[in-house]
Structure formats: C-alpha cells, structure tokens
C-alpha cells in the first residue's frame, strides 16, 4: 500500500542495496546426489511406474513359476528357466523404459527447460538419472532373486565366476539400455507418444530375445534381427551366469559366447552414448 503511493523518482534516487556477493555455485556431484534423491522419491510416488516398470518382471516370474510349475519340460524348474531372462527384462525396464518415458515427459512439460534456467550443471541432471537407474536396477535384482529364492526355491549361481558374469552383464546391459532410453526420449513428440515409442519396441524385443520363448524357436531372420538389440545379449549373458553348462547347447551357436555378449553390449554403450550426445535436447522442437 505504501509502495503504491511512493513517487517512482524518489525510489530510483535513493541508493538501491548493492547486489549480493555470491560464492561459487554448488558442485555438480553434490547437486547430482540431491537430484538423485529427488528422482527416487518422485519415482516411488507414481504407482503406475512402480507397478509397470519395477514390479512386472517379479509378477511374471511368480505367475510362470506357479502356473507352469507342474508341466514344465525344459529339464529344470520353470522358476530357474525364466529367472535369467526376466532379470534381463527387468534391467531393461528400469533403465530403457523408465528413462525413455520420464525424460520425454520432463521435456514436454518444460521441466528440463526450467532446470536449464537454474545454475544446475547439465551433468548433475544425468548424475541424478544414473542414481535413479542404479537404485532401481539393484532393487530389481534383489526383488527377482529374493522372490525366486524365497518363494520358489530357485537355484542361484554358486561360483564367483558366475556372479562376476552376472555383475558385468548387469553393468554393461543397464548402461546400454539407459543410453538407449535417453536417445529414444528425443524421438517422441509428446509424452503420450513416448510411452508408445518406448513400450512397443520393448514389448516386441521381449518376445524375440529369449525372455519368454527360447531363442532357438525363432526363425533365423528374426533371430538375426533380434541380435541387433541389447536385450537378447543381456538375456544370454544372464543365462550363462545362472544355467548349468549343459544348457549352452540350446543357445544359437551351442555356446554361451560371452565375449560376443560383451562386444555387443559394449557397442550399444558406444552407439547409445553417441546418439544421446548428438540428439539430447533440453527444449521441445516447438521451443526452437
């Protein structure tokens, strides 16, 4: 009310307080950690995401182990047979699907633009996403192994070598799928489209990458096509870690081919990084 009646010339004549002196902006790592914490809290508040990207593989494992328990004919219990593939699927889900949809949404609703309007360094945003995916991926492994072991008495790897295989497939596969998810988020024009652009290929890949159907059942052209994508290699790497040696005979080449798994996932990491770096946008197309 007082400011209303103040003559503007007197306000400009009186000395304004001098601008505050500022220290250095907070470090990228600290901001990234705080960003990661916000990401995790935000994710856990969205039950759709929790259900579809986090809990689904465990639900499917439970269903398969229960429904197919008595009539399964692959020389091992159903839970053991499906566990490695569903681990691969779960990891792709929490990385590729989570990032693809969430980044497209954040871009379209202007959250990324808003962040660019703050002094937050771009790296902090990606550190935050990395923390989210790491948290979800580890949670996914714990959930699946826990459900398999506690409820269905699944056979888990016993050798250090097998756990080591699982660890590097976990790292390479999750990194490759995360980068792919970030790249795909830029392809969607709307958040609704993002959900389709991400979920549709992911669903197809699940059926052609040996998650539900053995790869040897696929026609050769389809197998070759599926081999272009990381999920097939992640599943194969996980099977190598979990399955007895004799099961390698059911792989397309009759062996686990771990160097090939590492190479394929490694290539996807490089390709994914290159695509992400060249296509990532903070603004939508219409923002110019």
């Amino acid at each position, binding site marked *: 009310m007082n*400011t*209303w009646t103040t003559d*503007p010339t007197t*306000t*400009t004549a009186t000395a*304004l*307080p*001098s*601008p*505050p*002196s*500022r*220290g*250095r*902006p*907070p470090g990228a790592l600290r*901001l990234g950690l*705080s960003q990661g914490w*916000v990401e995790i*809290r*935000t994710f856990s*508040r*969205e039950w759709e995401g929790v259900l579809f990207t986090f809990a689904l593989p465990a639900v499917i494992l439970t269903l398969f182990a229960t429904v197919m328990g008595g009539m399964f004919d692959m020389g091992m219990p159903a839970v053991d047979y499906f566990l490695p593939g569903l681990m691969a699927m779960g990891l792709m889900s929490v990385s590729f699907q989570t990032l693809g949809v969430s980044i497209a*949404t*954040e871009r379209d*609703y*202007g*959250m990324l*633009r*808003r962040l*660019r*309007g*703050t*002094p*937050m*360094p771009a790296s902090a945003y990606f550190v935050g996403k990395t923390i989210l995916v790491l948290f979800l991926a580890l949670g996914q492994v714990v959930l699946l192994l826990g459900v398999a072991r506690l409820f269905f008495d699944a056979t888990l790897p016993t050798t250090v070598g097998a756990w080591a295989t699982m660890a590097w497939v976990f790292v390479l596969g999750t990194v490759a799928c995360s980068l792919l998810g970030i790249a795909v988020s830029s392809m969607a024009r709307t958040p609704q489209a993002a959900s389709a652009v991400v979920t549709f290929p992911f669903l197809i890949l699940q059926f052609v990458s040996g998650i539900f159907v053995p790869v040897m059942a696929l026609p050769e052209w389809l197998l070759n096509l599926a081999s272009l994508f990381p999920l097939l290699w992640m599943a194969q790497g996980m099977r190598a870690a979990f399955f007895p040696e004799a099961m390698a005979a059911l792989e397309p080449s009759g062996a686990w081919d771990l160097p090939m798994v590492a190479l394929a996932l490694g290539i996807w990491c490089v390709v994914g990084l290159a695509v992400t770096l060249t296509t990532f946008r903070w*603004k939508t197309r219409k*923002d*110019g």
Partner: protein
Amino acid sequence: MRDTVIEVTDLRKRYGATDAVAGIDLDIERGEIFALLGPNGAGKSTTVEILEGFRGRDGGEVRVLGEDPGRAGRAWRARVGVVWQKETLVPKLPVRDVVRHFAGYYPLADDPDEVIERVGLTHKSKELAESLSGGQLRRLDVALGIVGRPELLFLDEPTTGFDPKARREFWELIRSLAAGGTTIVLTTHYLEEAEALADRVCVIAHGRIRAIDTPAALDGRASRQATVSWREEGERREVRTDEPTRAVAEMAGRFVGEIPELSVHRPTLEEVYLGMINDDHVAEEAPV
C-alpha cells in the same frame, strides 16, 4: 553512475522469411520494473527468450548483467531468475521440498520457508505440488524463480489465472523485490498490471519497438485532450479539451448544484495501447 542491467542494440531474429525481431534497442536500469507489451506474435517472447539465453539471435548486440546471455555460464545463471509463461512440471514432492531442492542449485539462496511465505503458499507448504490449483502453481513458479535471490527477474505473463486479490498481493511482492534492487522484466497482457507496476512500458509490434515511456506518458497520453461529458436537456454531451478544469468551472456556473453525470476522462493505458496496435493494422493493410 548509470547502472545498466540490460543493453540491447539492433537485436534481430528471423524465423524463415519472417522477421520476428526486426531491430530492437533497449536499456534497462538496475531496480527498474520494465514491462513489455504487445499482441501475440509481436516478438516480445522471442526478445525475452534471447535475453534469458534460451534462444540465439541473428544480429545485434546483447549484454545482460555484463555478459552475452548466449554464452554466459552458471555464475551468470545464478544471478538471473526466470518465471516461464506456462506453469511447468515440478517434481512430485511437497511444495516445501521442491523449493528447498531448487534453492540447493544456487550459491546464495533465500530461506525456502520465507520464500514460500512471500508468495503466500505457507498453508500449502506440506502438500504435493501437483495438488495445487492453477494460480497456486503459478505462485510456486514465482517462488522457484526468486529463491536464488536473482539480480534480474524475468516474468512472462506471471499473473494469468490469478484472482484480483492474488494479483494485487503479487504486485506487492514484485514492488518489494524491485525496491530491494532486483531488476524486473515483465511481459503481460494486462494493461492494468503494467500501469500499476512498471516504471516504463515498451510496446512491441511487428518485431519493432512502437513506443517506450512511463505508463503515464506513453504515446503522449499525459498531454492528450481530456473528454468532459455530462447530461443536459436529456441528452449526453461531451467536449474534448486541453483545459478540462476550465471547462468544468465554466459549466459549474450554468448548473444549480451538481452537474448531472459529470465525468472527466483521459485515455487509459489500454486505449492508448489499442490505438497504437490498430494504427499498425491500418498502416499494414493500406494499399501501397
């Protein structure tokens, strides 16, 4: 000593064959509230986005807080606050946590609770940001724009969706920020808002500055003829005059008591503004 916060010389921006900004010059002083007015598509948003560092330019010199916004880094970002035109997505967290998180991006932030108090959201502080109404979300946008204690604050149509009381409270907030030395650049469609707040208004049309002055003096408004109108012998009469006081005094002698339905009217900011915009239309549509 002049303390210029924004200096723009011959700013130009083209979209395809259209000149969105066709040569704009501006000087905005520290502590000033500067309003940009203009019809949609006139180039004001483009101008503001260039000043904010969100859009490149095709020509001209721009200095904002002594730096080129197109190249400025994090330290510069920390001194600039932006409130976007549309409300944008915020993390799905309680209001207080969102403001605290954004405060963490800045080297010198205000106390989050105090900022929430200033925008009038204290009673919503513990509620989820997504549960807020449109006007409340807008207040949250403002809170996120000012929490880093900016020296320069851009407000793009900040009070859209506010009720009259909220708008007036918001004006008080802006005045107190300006009195504290914050420079405010405001775009608005509410002429009343520009008149109440701005030290100077700038009308942009067709990518050019049409007029720039104090709200009271815009386009010779202060010295324009006043219209004196009244009712006499059953009909409405009016005269346009440079001396309304004399006109009224003369009439007072002719009437016994009150002059029926007397009014003295000078053009409002809105009338002046609409006059300018319409002039442009006429000029454009006139045959060459």
